[in-house]
């Protein structure tokens, strides 16, 4: 398995680092204060490959709390609102696009 840090980092626009939380698997975002949040709005936004690498390095080092950190694209509106940059991230943030069979 190749570590995410060994892969070439290429970003084309504003990006964030996201992962899943170890104890329950929930979607989390790396913040600018060396921790994690389940709010995309609190994610640290990076705009260069170097910034992305630094944020990812720090995230990967937290193996205890987060699984599989990776860089994902986001869209940042003029007012600063952050939206996921692709369908997969949209689904991770807002849930399945279908109605779930039951809600316990």
């Amino acid at each position: 398995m190749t570590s995410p840090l060994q892969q070439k980092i290429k970003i084309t626009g504003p990006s964030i680092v996201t992962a899943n939380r170890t104890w329950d698997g929930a979607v989390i975002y790396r913040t600018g204060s060396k921790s994690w949040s389940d709010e995309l709005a609190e994610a640290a936004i990076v705009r260069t490959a170097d910034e992305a690498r630094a944020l990812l390095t720090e995230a990967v080092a937290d193996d205890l709390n987060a699984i599989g950190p990776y860089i994902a694209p986001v869209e940042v509106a003029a007012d600063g609102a952050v939206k996921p940059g692709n369908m997969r991230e949209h689904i991770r943030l807002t849930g399945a696009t279908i109605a779930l069979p039951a809600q316990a």
Partner: protein
Amino acid sequence: MYAYDDIDRTLVNERVAEFRDQVKRRLSGELSEDEFKMLRLQNGVYLQLHAYMYRIAIPYGTLASNQLRRLAHVARRYDRGYGHFTTRQNIQFNWIKLAELPDAMADLAEVGIQSMQTSGNNMRNVTADQWAGVAPGEVEDPRIWAELLRQFTTLHPEFSFLPRKFKIAITASEHDRAAIKIHDIGLRLLKNEQGETGFEVLVGGGLGRSPFIAKTIKPFVHGHDILSYVEAILRVYNQYGRRDNIYKARIKILVHELGIEKFAAEVEEEWQQIREGVLKLDEGIVEDIRSRFFYPAYETQPAMPDELKQAAHDPKFEAWRKNSVFPHKQQGYAIAVVSLKPVGKPPGDATADQMDALADIADKYSFGEIRVGHEQNLALPHVKKRDLPAVWKALEAIGLAIPNVNLVSDIIACPGLDYCSLANARSIPIAQEITRRFANHDTANLIGRLHINISGCINACGHHHVGHIGILGVEKNNEEFYQITIGGRADEGAELGTLIGPAVPYAEVADVVEDIVEAYLALRARPEELFVDTVKRLGVEPFRERVYATR
């Protein structure tokens, strides 16, 4: 049903204790994710987009009502009130927390359910014909052998770290309901001229990036040699299967690269060394396993009871009966398939309430037994024909009297991008839209048997290659596109489908499927000619012309 004894119970409990310790070590940081990942996978725990997913084995698709109730309990207590039945006789929960998993596992262990080796590079749940033991004309119940293989493959000290996952399926009927030709090992139970039980052994089938139909490696392996023969195959694979490239690591690639003759010769050489050894089964061992299967005490029942004659006046009942009720080996009994494919809902899902209700129905009408099939439907395997109207009413009350078994809306679909971290595109909404297009029962009936299989990525969990119509989600420039194949089939005449044309965007998939079905209705020689037979007769071209003429 196979009844666990102390040995089985002890093993499962020891497994739960081991996993509890492993989870504890992961949460305390003693185990890294890299180390833990393989351990959790060997217990059926994946990480998906939103949460962990927990996959539980239903060996050879046989479930007891108390087990189904316990699955309902797990759905409610640890998940979000529903479960998803897969194409390999497993059930998956999508929202489970790692910290709570050992408790869920312990709850299941109490009723003899476990999740060992439901993922990871080891021998997966051994699957079988879902109508095993009740299908008319079956050679003998293949579940005895599936159970012997289940035990043999569970926590095997040599084969728990194979190059890649390894799946075995077994059938004892002429019509293959277990899709043995798309498995790593497919076993077809038969009798030799002396009337002794054995197997035609097929090897190297599989879907995914490089699909292959399995080839026969040996036309007859005696039942008492089956474990040693499987061990010989696994030993050759464990030593020589590729480990340098995950996409070339399945046994199908080894068989393909060596050629079936050379591979068979390697296996034969190994087998000759071990066939008279400790794995040789004697009648006592086989009988011991057989004795712990439950067989109902059937009553003498009329072939055509009055209750059924009267109910035939109700067209809704008749529509369901004609579509969902299948012949049983015992006169007066029937197999009632329970479709989990309601219009507009995710294929293969059942709520906890439905599971509980179905368990009650099974207790009342089917000797407490439920079956799980690879088409992601359930079945009540021993229903008295005179009880069919009552069963239908009971199913109707929980939304599960859906008369679409084997019809165009009986779709196999993987979870796709709505849940799965490997997916490139969504599967479930595509399935939902297609079921809405074909919601009219009369139209669906007119079309006849037609299997649509949908996968959200090339890993092919939705078996798209072998769907009569196969739909594969791909990603193109950040958009969901779908490649469509026709003419595939998963049964004894297994074939891979052929691409019909360029991939189409998400919004057009249901239109294309409608066009394909319209083309079929125009092209079929007579109403009885199935879709897949028309494709076989005419090839893909006339379909391509009609479907893509206006695109």
